[in-house]
Protein backbone atom coordinates (compact mmCIF):
# COMPACT_ATOMS: atom_id res chain seq x y z
CA UNK A 1 0.00 0.00 0.00
CA UNK A 2 2.55 2.56 1.16
CA UNK A 3 4.77 1.52 -1.73
CA UNK A 4 2.07 2.41 -4.27
CA UNK A 5 1.34 5.66 -2.51
CA UNK A 6 5.01 6.63 -2.65
CA UNK A 7 5.40 5.57 -6.28
CA UNK A 8 2.32 7.51 -7.38
CA UNK A 9 3.41 10.69 -5.57
CA UNK A 10 6.98 10.53 -6.88
CA UNK A 11 5.79 9.82 -10.44
CA UNK A 12 3.33 12.73 -10.24
CA UNK A 13 6.13 14.99 -9.05
CA UNK A 14 8.48 14.05 -11.89
CA UNK A 15 5.83 14.10 -14.62
CA UNK A 16 4.47 17.46 -13.50
CA UNK A 17 7.97 18.88 -13.87
CA UNK A 18 8.51 17.26 -17.26
CA UNK A 19 5.12 18.37 -18.58
CA UNK A 20 5.51 21.93 -17.36
CA UNK A 21 6.69 23.39 -20.70
CA UNK A 22 3.44 22.12 -22.28
CA UNK A 23 1.26 23.77 -19.65
CA UNK A 24 2.56 27.27 -20.44
CA UNK A 25 2.38 28.40 -16.83
CA UNK A 26 3.18 31.97 -15.75
CA UNK A 27 4.16 31.55 -12.08
CA UNK A 28 5.53 35.10 -11.77
CA UNK A 29 2.57 36.81 -13.42
CA UNK A 30 1.21 39.53 -11.11
CA UNK A 31 -2.56 39.94 -11.07
CA UNK A 32 -3.64 42.97 -9.07
CA UNK A 33 -7.32 42.02 -9.11
CA UNK A 34 -6.58 38.63 -7.55
CA UNK A 35 -4.44 39.61 -4.56
CA UNK A 36 -4.78 37.00 -1.78
CA UNK A 37 -7.67 35.39 -3.64
CA UNK A 38 -8.79 32.28 -1.76
CA UNK A 39 -9.00 28.94 -3.62
CA UNK A 40 -11.99 28.95 -5.97
CA UNK A 41 -13.13 27.60 -9.33
CA UNK A 42 -11.36 30.48 -11.04
CA UNK A 43 -8.14 30.35 -9.01
CA UNK A 44 -7.68 26.68 -8.08
CA UNK A 45 -5.29 27.00 -5.16
CA UNK A 46 -5.79 30.71 -4.65
CA UNK A 47 -3.37 33.57 -5.30
CA UNK A 48 -0.62 35.14 -3.21
CA UNK A 49 0.04 38.68 -1.92
CA UNK A 50 0.99 39.84 -5.44
CA UNK A 51 -1.92 38.02 -7.05
CA UNK A 52 0.34 35.28 -8.44
CA UNK A 53 -1.21 31.84 -8.86
CA UNK A 54 -0.27 29.56 -5.95
CA UNK A 55 -0.92 26.48 -8.10
CA UNK A 56 1.48 27.59 -10.83
CA UNK A 57 4.07 28.63 -8.27
CA UNK A 58 3.78 25.17 -6.70
CA UNK A 59 4.61 23.66 -10.09
CA UNK A 60 7.58 25.98 -10.47
CA UNK A 61 8.67 25.00 -6.95
CA UNK A 62 8.38 21.32 -7.89
CA UNK A 63 10.88 21.94 -10.67
CA UNK A 64 13.35 23.67 -8.34
CA UNK A 65 12.98 20.88 -5.78
CA UNK A 66 13.59 18.19 -8.40
CA UNK A 67 16.50 20.02 -10.00
CA UNK A 68 18.25 20.79 -6.71
CA UNK A 69 17.67 17.37 -5.15
CA UNK A 70 18.77 15.34 -8.17
CA UNK A 71 21.83 17.54 -8.80
CA UNK A 72 22.86 17.59 -5.14
CA UNK A 73 22.37 13.89 -4.55
CA UNK A 74 24.30 13.03 -7.73
CA UNK A 75 27.20 15.32 -6.90
CA UNK A 76 27.48 14.32 -3.27
CA UNK A 77 26.94 10.59 -3.90
CA UNK A 78 29.56 10.54 -6.66
CA UNK A 79 32.14 12.56 -4.73
CA UNK A 80 31.44 10.76 -1.45
CA UNK A 81 31.60 7.28 -2.98
CA UNK A 82 34.87 7.95 -4.76
CA UNK A 83 36.52 9.55 -1.73
CA UNK A 84 35.23 6.91 0.67
CA UNK A 85 36.13 3.98 -1.58
CA UNK A 86 39.62 5.38 -2.13
CA UNK A 87 40.08 5.89 1.61
CA UNK A 88 38.92 2.39 2.55
CA UNK A 89 40.76 0.65 -0.24
CA UNK A 90 44.06 2.54 -0.10
CA UNK A 91 44.40 2.45 3.70
CA UNK A 92 47.53 3.93 5.30
CA UNK A 93 48.04 7.68 5.49
CA UNK A 94 45.40 8.40 2.81
CA UNK A 95 42.83 6.67 4.98
CA UNK A 96 43.95 8.42 8.17
CA UNK A 97 43.74 11.87 6.59
CA UNK A 98 40.40 11.29 4.84
CA UNK A 99 38.88 9.65 7.93
CA UNK A 100 39.89 12.61 10.05
CA UNK A 101 38.30 15.03 7.56
CA UNK A 102 35.12 12.91 7.60
CA UNK A 103 35.15 12.98 11.43
CA UNK A 104 35.47 16.76 11.48
CA UNK A 105 32.68 17.18 8.94
CA UNK A 106 30.45 14.83 10.94
CA UNK A 107 31.25 16.75 14.12
CA UNK A 108 29.62 19.74 12.45
CA UNK A 109 25.82 19.82 12.45
CA UNK A 110 24.87 19.52 8.77
CA UNK A 111 22.12 22.10 8.54
CA UNK A 112 24.29 24.65 10.35
CA UNK A 113 27.17 24.13 7.91
CA UNK A 114 24.77 24.48 4.98
CA UNK A 115 23.34 27.69 6.45
CA UNK A 116 26.82 29.13 7.01
CA UNK A 117 27.97 28.16 3.50
CA UNK A 118 24.84 29.52 1.85
CA UNK A 119 25.29 32.75 3.81
CA UNK A 120 28.91 33.15 2.73
CA UNK A 121 28.39 32.06 -0.89
CA UNK A 122 25.33 34.27 -1.30
CA UNK A 123 21.87 33.21 -2.46
CA UNK A 124 21.05 31.43 -5.72
CA UNK A 125 20.35 27.91 -6.95
CA UNK A 126 23.95 26.98 -7.86
CA UNK A 127 25.21 28.10 -4.46
CA UNK A 128 22.39 26.15 -2.84
CA UNK A 129 23.53 22.99 -4.64
CA UNK A 130 27.15 23.64 -3.65
CA UNK A 131 26.29 24.30 0.00
CA UNK A 132 24.16 21.16 0.40
CA UNK A 133 26.65 18.99 -1.53
CA UNK A 134 29.55 20.11 0.65
CA UNK A 135 27.55 18.83 3.62
CA UNK A 136 26.07 15.81 1.85
CA UNK A 137 29.10 13.93 0.51
CA UNK A 138 30.26 12.91 4.00
CA UNK A 139 27.45 10.41 4.59
CA UNK A 140 28.19 8.60 1.32
CA UNK A 141 31.92 8.70 2.00
CA UNK A 142 31.54 7.09 5.40
CA UNK A 143 29.32 4.38 3.95
CA UNK A 144 31.59 3.74 0.96
CA UNK A 145 34.67 3.59 3.17
CA UNK A 146 33.15 0.95 5.44
CA UNK A 147 32.03 -1.04 2.39
CA UNK A 148 35.43 -0.83 0.72
CA UNK A 149 37.15 -1.95 3.93
CA UNK A 150 35.16 -5.16 4.04
CA UNK A 151 35.00 -5.74 0.27
CA UNK A 152 38.75 -5.62 -0.19
CA UNK A 153 39.04 -8.74 2.00
CA UNK A 154 36.86 -10.73 -0.40
CA UNK A 155 38.34 -13.54 -2.50
CA UNK A 156 37.48 -12.05 -5.85
CA UNK A 157 39.57 -8.99 -5.01
CA UNK A 158 42.53 -11.17 -3.96
CA UNK A 159 42.09 -13.06 -7.23
CA UNK A 160 42.14 -9.80 -9.19
CA UNK A 161 45.32 -8.73 -7.39
CA UNK A 162 46.91 -12.13 -8.08
CA UNK A 163 46.02 -11.77 -11.75
CA UNK A 164 47.86 -8.46 -11.79
CA UNK A 165 44.98 -6.01 -12.17
CA UNK A 166 45.84 -2.38 -11.62
CA UNK A 167 44.59 -0.67 -8.43
CA UNK A 168 42.27 1.69 -10.32
CA UNK A 169 40.71 -1.19 -12.22
CA UNK A 170 40.13 -3.20 -9.04
CA UNK A 171 38.45 -0.22 -7.42
CA UNK A 172 36.36 0.51 -10.52
CA UNK A 173 35.38 -3.00 -11.54
CA UNK A 174 35.52 -5.12 -8.40
CA UNK A 175 34.79 -2.86 -5.44
CA UNK A 176 32.55 0.07 -6.37
CA UNK A 177 29.88 -1.97 -8.26
CA UNK A 178 29.36 -4.13 -5.17
CA UNK A 179 28.71 -1.18 -2.88
CA UNK A 180 25.95 0.28 -5.03
CA UNK A 181 22.99 -1.24 -3.16
CA UNK A 182 23.47 0.51 0.20
CA UNK A 183 24.47 3.70 -1.60
CA UNK A 184 21.23 3.61 -3.60
CA UNK A 185 19.24 3.33 -0.36
CA UNK A 186 21.22 6.21 1.12
CA UNK A 187 20.56 8.26 -2.03
CA UNK A 188 16.79 7.84 -1.86
CA UNK A 189 16.78 9.05 1.75
CA UNK A 190 19.16 11.73 0.49
CA UNK A 191 16.50 13.06 -1.91
CA UNK A 192 14.17 13.59 1.06
CA UNK A 193 16.89 15.27 3.11
CA UNK A 194 17.93 17.59 0.27
CA UNK A 195 14.34 18.70 -0.40
CA UNK A 196 13.98 19.64 3.26
CA UNK A 197 17.36 21.39 3.22
CA UNK A 198 16.57 23.33 0.03
CA UNK A 199 13.18 24.40 1.34
CA UNK A 200 14.66 25.22 4.75
CA UNK A 201 17.40 27.43 3.29
CA UNK A 202 14.90 29.12 0.96
CA UNK A 203 12.60 29.61 3.96
CA UNK A 204 15.45 31.44 5.70
CA UNK A 205 15.95 33.58 2.58
CA UNK A 206 19.28 31.91 1.75
CA UNK A 207 18.24 29.87 -1.25
CA UNK A 208 16.06 30.59 -4.25
CA UNK A 209 15.55 34.34 -4.66
CA UNK A 210 12.37 36.25 -5.55
CA UNK A 211 10.53 36.34 -7.84
CA UNK A 212 11.40 32.70 -8.46
CA UNK A 213 9.19 30.27 -6.54
CA UNK A 214 10.46 27.60 -4.18
CA UNK A 215 8.29 25.63 -1.77
CA UNK A 216 10.36 26.94 1.13
CA UNK A 217 10.17 30.61 0.14
CA UNK A 218 6.43 30.23 -0.50
CA UNK A 219 5.95 29.09 3.10
CA UNK A 220 8.02 32.04 4.29
CA UNK A 221 5.96 34.52 2.27
CA UNK A 222 2.76 32.79 3.36
CA UNK A 223 3.71 32.97 7.04
CA UNK A 224 3.06 36.74 6.93
CA UNK A 225 -0.53 36.19 5.81
CA UNK A 226 -1.51 33.23 7.98
CA UNK A 227 -4.72 34.78 9.28
CA UNK A 228 -6.06 36.33 6.06
CA UNK A 229 -4.78 33.80 3.53
CA UNK A 230 -3.73 30.53 5.21
CA UNK A 231 -3.71 28.73 1.86
CA UNK A 232 -0.41 30.47 0.97
CA UNK A 233 1.49 28.50 3.61
CA UNK A 234 -0.66 25.37 3.69
CA UNK A 235 -0.28 24.17 0.08
CA UNK A 236 3.51 24.35 -0.36
CA UNK A 237 3.88 22.58 3.00
CA UNK A 238 1.61 19.76 1.87
CA UNK A 239 3.70 19.45 -1.31
CA UNK A 240 6.96 19.17 0.65
CA UNK A 241 5.40 16.80 3.16
CA UNK A 242 4.02 14.43 0.50
CA UNK A 243 7.23 14.29 -1.53
CA UNK A 244 9.48 13.88 1.52
CA UNK A 245 7.21 11.21 2.98
CA UNK A 246 7.21 9.35 -0.34
CA UNK A 247 10.98 9.52 -0.72
CA UNK A 248 11.34 8.16 2.85
CA UNK A 249 8.84 5.35 2.17
CA UNK A 250 10.61 4.55 -1.07
CA UNK A 251 13.94 4.41 0.77
CA UNK A 252 12.45 2.08 3.40
CA UNK A 253 11.08 -0.18 0.71
CA UNK A 254 14.33 -0.18 -1.23
CA UNK A 255 16.29 -1.01 1.90
CA UNK A 256 14.20 -4.04 2.79
CA UNK A 257 14.16 -5.12 -0.84
CA UNK A 258 17.92 -4.86 -1.36
CA UNK A 259 18.77 -6.45 1.99
CA UNK A 260 16.75 -9.51 0.99
CA UNK A 261 18.82 -9.82 -2.16
CA UNK A 262 21.99 -9.55 -0.10
CA UNK A 263 20.96 -12.52 2.00
CA UNK A 264 20.27 -14.63 -1.08
CA UNK A 265 23.69 -13.79 -2.46
Amino acid at each position, binding site marked *: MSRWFATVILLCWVSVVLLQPLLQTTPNQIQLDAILAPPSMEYWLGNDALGRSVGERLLAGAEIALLVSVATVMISALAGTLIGALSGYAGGMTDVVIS*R*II*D*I*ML*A*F*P*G*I*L*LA*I*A*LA*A*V*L*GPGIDNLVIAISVVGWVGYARLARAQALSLKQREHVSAAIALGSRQGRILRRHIIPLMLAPLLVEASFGI*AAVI*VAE*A*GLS*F*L*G*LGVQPPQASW*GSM*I*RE*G*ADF*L*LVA*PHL*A*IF*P*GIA*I*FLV*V*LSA*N*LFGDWLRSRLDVRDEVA
Partner: protein
Amino acid sequence: MLTRVMTSLITLIGVVSLVFFLIHLIPGDPVEYILGDSARPADREALRSELGLDRPVIIQYADYLSGLVRLDLGHSLHSRQPVSELLLERLPATLKLSLAAFLLAILIAFPLGVLAATRSGTSWDSGAMVLSLLGVSIPNFWLGPMLILLFSLWLGLTPVSGMEQPGSLILPAVTLGVSLAAILARMVRSSLLEVLNEDYIRTARAKGVSEQVIVWKHALSNALLPVITLLGLQFGALLAGSVITEKVFSWPGVGLLLIDAIQQRDYPVVQGAVLLIAVSYLVVNRLTDLLYRAVDPRIKVA
Protein backbone atom coordinates in the same frame (compact mmCIF):
# COMPACT_ATOMS: atom_id res chain seq x y z
CA MET B 1 40.52 7.23 27.37
CA LEU B 2 43.47 9.53 26.74
CA THR B 3 43.41 8.86 23.00
CA ARG B 4 39.69 9.63 22.94
CA VAL B 5 40.32 13.01 24.56
CA MET B 6 43.13 13.61 22.06
CA THR B 7 41.00 12.80 19.00
CA SER B 8 38.24 15.00 20.43
CA LEU B 9 40.76 17.84 20.72
CA ILE B 10 41.94 17.35 17.14
CA THR B 11 38.34 17.32 15.93
CA LEU B 12 37.66 20.46 17.96
CA ILE B 13 40.60 22.25 16.35
CA GLY B 14 39.35 21.01 12.98
CA VAL B 15 35.86 22.40 13.57
CA VAL B 16 37.24 25.73 14.80
CA SER B 17 39.49 25.99 11.73
CA LEU B 18 36.67 24.99 9.40
CA VAL B 19 34.60 27.92 10.69
CA PHE B 20 37.50 30.32 10.13
CA PHE B 21 38.32 29.19 6.62
CA LEU B 22 34.66 29.03 5.73
CA ILE B 23 34.39 32.76 6.34
CA HIS B 24 37.84 33.77 5.06
CA LEU B 25 38.72 31.66 2.06
CA ILE B 26 35.48 31.80 0.14
CA PRO B 27 35.95 33.80 -3.09
CA GLY B 28 34.59 37.33 -2.90
CA ASP B 29 35.50 40.30 -0.79
CA PRO B 30 33.47 40.65 2.41
CA VAL B 31 34.16 44.39 2.46
CA GLU B 32 32.62 44.71 -0.99
CA TYR B 33 29.74 42.60 0.20
CA ILE B 34 29.15 44.64 3.36
CA LEU B 35 29.52 48.16 1.96
CA GLY B 36 28.23 47.63 -1.58
CA ASP B 37 29.55 49.11 -4.83
CA SER B 38 29.15 52.78 -4.08
CA ALA B 39 31.31 53.03 -0.93
CA ARG B 40 34.27 55.43 -0.86
CA PRO B 41 37.72 53.78 -1.18
CA ALA B 42 38.79 55.33 2.14
CA ASP B 43 35.82 53.72 3.91
CA ARG B 44 36.66 50.37 2.37
CA GLU B 45 40.23 50.61 3.60
CA ALA B 46 39.03 51.58 7.08
CA LEU B 47 36.69 48.60 7.30
CA ARG B 48 39.32 46.30 5.81
CA SER B 49 41.84 47.21 8.48
CA GLU B 50 39.19 47.14 11.20
CA LEU B 51 38.34 43.56 10.20
CA GLY B 52 42.05 42.83 9.95
CA LEU B 53 41.61 41.72 6.34
CA ASP B 54 44.67 43.66 5.15
CA ARG B 55 46.99 41.16 6.84
CA PRO B 56 48.08 37.72 5.56
CA VAL B 57 45.57 34.92 6.15
CA ILE B 58 47.99 33.00 8.39
CA ILE B 59 48.34 36.00 10.72
CA GLN B 60 44.57 36.43 10.76
CA TYR B 61 44.20 32.76 11.62
CA ALA B 62 46.72 32.97 14.46
CA ASP B 63 44.95 36.08 15.71
CA TYR B 64 41.62 34.32 15.60
CA LEU B 65 42.95 31.33 17.55
CA SER B 66 44.58 33.50 20.22
CA GLY B 67 41.36 35.50 20.46
CA LEU B 68 39.41 32.27 20.99
CA VAL B 69 41.60 31.25 23.88
CA ARG B 70 40.76 34.59 25.54
CA LEU B 71 37.10 34.10 24.53
CA ASP B 72 37.43 37.22 22.40
CA LEU B 73 35.35 36.76 19.25
CA GLY B 74 35.61 40.32 17.98
CA HIS B 75 32.92 42.98 17.78
CA SER B 76 29.62 43.14 15.96
CA LEU B 77 29.83 45.39 12.89
CA HIS B 78 26.25 46.36 13.51
CA SER B 79 25.88 47.10 17.22
CA ARG B 80 29.61 47.35 18.11
CA GLN B 81 29.01 45.05 21.09
CA PRO B 82 31.51 42.25 21.78
CA VAL B 83 30.31 39.08 20.02
CA SER B 84 30.85 36.95 23.12
CA GLU B 85 28.52 39.26 25.08
CA LEU B 86 25.82 38.99 22.40
CA LEU B 87 26.10 35.21 22.39
CA LEU B 88 25.90 34.96 26.18
CA GLU B 89 22.78 37.12 26.13
CA ARG B 90 21.09 34.80 23.67
CA LEU B 91 22.31 31.42 24.89
CA PRO B 92 19.80 30.93 27.75
CA ALA B 93 16.83 31.25 25.38
CA THR B 94 18.26 28.64 23.02
CA LEU B 95 19.06 26.26 25.89
CA LYS B 96 15.57 26.71 27.31
CA LEU B 97 13.98 25.90 23.95
CA SER B 98 16.24 22.93 23.23
CA LEU B 99 15.79 21.42 26.69
CA ALA B 100 12.01 21.78 26.50
CA ALA B 101 11.94 20.14 23.06
CA PHE B 102 14.27 17.40 24.31
CA LEU B 103 12.09 16.56 27.34
CA LEU B 104 8.95 16.68 25.24
CA ALA B 105 10.47 14.29 22.71
CA ILE B 106 11.42 11.83 25.45
CA LEU B 107 7.93 12.02 26.99
CA ILE B 108 6.32 11.23 23.63
CA ALA B 109 8.85 8.73 22.29
CA PHE B 110 9.23 6.32 25.21
CA PRO B 111 5.58 5.38 25.70
CA LEU B 112 5.13 5.21 21.92
CA GLY B 113 8.23 3.07 21.37
CA VAL B 114 7.43 0.70 24.27
CA LEU B 115 3.84 0.38 23.07
CA ALA B 116 5.00 -0.49 19.56
CA ALA B 117 7.61 -3.00 20.74
CA THR B 118 5.44 -4.83 23.28
CA ARG B 119 2.58 -5.11 20.80
CA SER B 120 4.80 -5.69 17.80
CA GLY B 121 2.98 -6.80 14.66
CA THR B 122 -0.38 -5.44 15.84
CA SER B 123 -2.14 -2.36 14.56
CA TRP B 124 -0.84 -0.49 17.65
CA ASP B 125 2.65 -1.11 16.35
CA SER B 126 1.96 -0.03 12.79
CA GLY B 127 -0.03 2.97 14.04
CA ALA B 128 2.89 4.13 16.18
CA MET B 129 5.31 3.66 13.31
CA VAL B 130 3.09 5.58 10.88
CA LEU B 131 2.99 8.42 13.42
CA SER B 132 6.76 8.28 13.63
CA LEU B 133 7.15 8.38 9.84
CA LEU B 134 4.83 11.38 9.65
CA GLY B 135 6.86 13.09 12.38
CA VAL B 136 10.12 12.60 10.48
CA SER B 137 8.62 13.88 7.23
CA ILE B 138 7.06 17.12 8.50
CA PRO B 139 9.57 19.97 8.04
CA ASN B 140 9.70 22.20 11.13
CA PHE B 141 9.47 25.43 9.12
CA TRP B 142 6.02 24.28 8.03
CA LEU B 143 4.88 22.62 11.25
CA GLY B 144 5.62 25.87 13.13
CA PRO B 145 3.38 28.15 11.02
CA MET B 146 0.65 25.47 10.99
CA LEU B 147 0.70 25.23 14.80
CA ILE B 148 0.55 29.04 15.02
CA LEU B 149 -2.40 29.04 12.64
CA LEU B 150 -4.31 26.40 14.59
CA PHE B 151 -3.51 27.16 18.22
CA SER B 152 -2.70 30.88 18.19
CA LEU B 153 -4.82 32.39 15.43
CA TRP B 154 -7.84 30.12 15.23
CA LEU B 155 -8.13 28.82 18.82
CA GLY B 156 -6.36 31.72 20.55
CA LEU B 157 -4.71 29.39 23.08
CA THR B 158 -1.03 30.36 22.77
CA PRO B 159 1.01 33.48 21.94
CA VAL B 160 2.09 33.83 18.29
CA SER B 161 5.76 34.57 18.90
CA GLY B 162 8.40 35.87 21.29
CA MET B 163 9.09 34.45 24.75
CA GLU B 164 7.67 36.96 27.24
CA GLN B 165 4.11 35.71 27.59
CA PRO B 166 3.19 32.57 29.55
CA GLY B 167 2.79 29.54 27.33
CA SER B 168 5.02 30.99 24.64
CA LEU B 169 7.41 28.06 25.01
CA ILE B 170 4.81 25.40 24.08
CA LEU B 171 4.56 25.77 20.29
CA PRO B 172 8.31 26.25 19.62
CA ALA B 173 9.11 23.24 21.80
CA VAL B 174 6.58 21.06 19.97
CA THR B 175 7.85 22.27 16.58
CA LEU B 176 11.44 21.48 17.47
CA GLY B 177 10.71 18.26 19.39
CA VAL B 178 8.43 16.37 16.99
CA SER B 179 11.07 15.03 14.62
CA LEU B 180 13.31 13.98 17.52
CA ALA B 181 10.34 12.22 19.14
CA ALA B 182 9.72 10.37 15.88
CA ILE B 183 13.33 9.21 15.47
CA LEU B 184 13.56 8.29 19.14
CA ALA B 185 10.34 6.25 19.12
CA ARG B 186 11.68 4.10 16.27
CA MET B 187 14.95 3.62 18.11
CA VAL B 188 13.28 2.66 21.41
CA ARG B 189 11.08 0.17 19.55
CA SER B 190 13.86 -1.58 17.65
CA SER B 191 16.21 -1.60 20.63
CA LEU B 192 13.53 -3.01 22.96
CA LEU B 193 12.46 -5.62 20.40
CA GLU B 194 16.02 -6.86 20.15
CA VAL B 195 16.41 -7.18 23.92
CA LEU B 196 13.02 -8.88 24.33
CA ASN B 197 14.29 -11.75 22.17
CA GLU B 198 17.28 -12.47 24.40
CA ASP B 199 17.70 -15.55 26.54
CA TYR B 200 17.57 -13.82 29.91
CA ILE B 201 14.14 -12.44 29.10
CA ARG B 202 12.94 -15.94 28.26
CA THR B 203 14.39 -17.11 31.58
CA ALA B 204 12.53 -14.36 33.40
CA ARG B 205 9.31 -15.32 31.62
CA ALA B 206 9.88 -18.99 32.50
CA LYS B 207 10.28 -18.02 36.16
CA GLY B 208 6.87 -16.42 35.97
CA VAL B 209 7.92 -12.78 36.26
CA SER B 210 5.03 -10.56 35.21
CA GLU B 211 5.19 -9.02 31.74
CA GLN B 212 5.11 -5.51 33.27
CA VAL B 213 8.24 -6.14 35.32
CA ILE B 214 9.97 -7.83 32.38
CA VAL B 215 9.42 -4.89 30.06
CA TRP B 216 9.98 -1.98 32.41
CA LYS B 217 12.68 -3.46 34.62
CA HIS B 218 14.58 -6.23 32.85
CA ALA B 219 14.34 -5.23 29.21
CA LEU B 220 14.14 -1.46 29.18
CA SER B 221 17.26 -0.85 31.26
CA ASN B 222 19.33 -2.73 28.69
CA ALA B 223 17.44 -1.41 25.70
CA LEU B 224 18.20 2.15 26.83
CA LEU B 225 21.95 1.97 26.24
CA PRO B 226 21.97 2.50 22.46
CA VAL B 227 19.24 5.09 22.94
CA ILE B 228 21.55 7.18 25.14
CA THR B 229 24.05 7.59 22.30
CA LEU B 230 21.31 8.67 19.98
CA LEU B 231 20.00 11.12 22.58
CA GLY B 232 23.38 12.82 22.83
CA LEU B 233 23.75 13.08 19.06
CA GLN B 234 20.24 14.39 18.76
CA PHE B 235 20.54 16.98 21.50
CA GLY B 236 23.35 18.52 19.51
CA ALA B 237 21.19 18.36 16.40
CA LEU B 238 18.44 20.14 18.33
CA LEU B 239 20.79 23.06 18.99
CA ALA B 240 21.38 23.34 15.25
CA GLY B 241 17.73 22.71 14.36
CA SER B 242 16.65 25.47 16.70
CA VAL B 243 17.96 28.00 14.14
CA ILE B 244 14.89 27.51 11.93
CA THR B 245 12.44 27.14 14.82
CA GLU B 246 13.73 30.35 16.43
CA LYS B 247 13.23 32.15 13.12
CA VAL B 248 9.64 30.88 12.81
CA PHE B 249 8.67 32.03 16.32
CA SER B 250 10.98 35.06 16.63
CA TRP B 251 12.46 33.24 19.63
CA PRO B 252 15.37 35.44 20.79
CA GLY B 253 18.08 32.78 20.86
CA VAL B 254 21.46 32.20 19.20
CA GLY B 255 19.77 30.89 16.02
CA LEU B 256 17.77 34.06 15.49
CA LEU B 257 20.93 36.09 16.20
CA LEU B 258 22.69 34.08 13.48
CA ILE B 259 19.95 34.59 10.89
CA ASP B 260 19.70 38.31 11.65
CA ALA B 261 23.49 38.65 11.45
CA ILE B 262 23.50 36.89 8.07
CA GLN B 263 20.94 39.36 6.78
CA GLN B 264 22.98 42.31 8.11
CA ARG B 265 26.21 40.76 6.80
CA ASP B 266 27.62 41.00 10.28
CA TYR B 267 30.44 38.47 9.77
CA PRO B 268 32.01 38.46 13.25
CA VAL B 269 28.60 37.59 14.73
CA VAL B 270 27.93 34.94 12.06
CA GLN B 271 31.31 33.38 12.80
CA GLY B 272 30.76 33.49 16.57
CA ALA B 273 27.26 31.99 16.45
CA VAL B 274 28.27 29.18 14.08
CA LEU B 275 31.26 28.46 16.29
CA LEU B 276 29.20 28.37 19.48
CA ILE B 277 26.61 25.96 18.05
CA ALA B 278 29.23 23.72 16.41
CA VAL B 279 31.40 23.51 19.53
CA SER B 280 28.40 22.79 21.79
CA TYR B 281 27.33 20.05 19.39
CA LEU B 282 30.78 18.50 19.50
CA VAL B 283 31.11 18.74 23.28
CA VAL B 284 27.67 17.20 23.91
CA ASN B 285 28.47 14.33 21.54
CA ARG B 286 31.79 13.55 23.18
CA LEU B 287 30.30 13.76 26.68
CA THR B 288 27.59 11.30 25.64
CA ASP B 289 30.24 9.00 24.31
CA LEU B 290 32.05 9.07 27.66
CA LEU B 291 28.79 8.64 29.58
CA TYR B 292 27.88 5.67 27.41
CA ARG B 293 31.18 4.03 28.22
CA ALA B 294 30.67 4.68 31.92
CA VAL B 295 27.14 3.20 31.92
CA ASP B 296 27.91 0.07 29.93
CA PRO B 297 30.79 -1.96 31.40
CA ARG B 298 30.84 -4.30 28.37
CA ILE B 299 32.35 -1.59 26.19
CA LYS B 300 35.56 -1.33 28.24
CA VAL B 301 36.28 -4.98 27.61
CA ALA B 302 35.78 -4.65 23.87
